């Protein structure tokens, strides 16, 4: 048998994606500096760039828009959001 071996890099399994364990801490590291949607328990949304946050989920946002029922109701250059009001933080751009 003198069959040539298959070309090496066709169909070889792709390397596993860069390991990110997906914990909340890892998510937050990845999302700082990115556009996010912060929804409060009241249903009000804040869209802006995530400056930073702390262990209570207190959040600092830049270029913030406040959305109530789909309409912009306010704009803030910077905003501090107290963490107890936060329902979720969602990435609004590719991570």
């Amino acid at each position: 048998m003198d069959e040539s071996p298959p070309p090496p890099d066709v169909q070889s399994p792709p390397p596993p994606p860069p390991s990110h364990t997906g914990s909340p801490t890892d998510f937050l590291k990845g999302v700082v500096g990115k556009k996010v949607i912060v929804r409060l328990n009241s249903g009000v949304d804040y869209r802006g760039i995530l400056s930073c946050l702390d262990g209570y989920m207190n959040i600092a946002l830049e270029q913030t828009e406040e959305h109530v029922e789909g309409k912009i109701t306010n704009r803030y250059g910077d905003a501090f959001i107290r963490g107890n009001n936060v329902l979720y933080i969602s990435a609004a751009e590719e991570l």
Partner: protein
Amino acid sequence: MASQVLPLELIDKCIGSRIWVVMKSEREFTGTLLGFDDFVNMVLEDVTEYEITPQGTKKTKLAQTLLNGNNICMLVPGSDGEES
């Protein structure tokens, strides 16, 4: 001696699968579980949020999302909510 499985060990086995999250209020989420912490704050991917109101259910699609564990009521592993 009952085998001791901690509740969070079960949730740990759900990482990578779909999960249905029911909040204390009339709000639910489904998504792929990427991770969680001791407070059961959860990172989900390909998320749908369901807001259940008397007028009907409002659905919102979300990308990667960190859900605050504070107001979570129940978790249903391997489920895509009532739609499935």
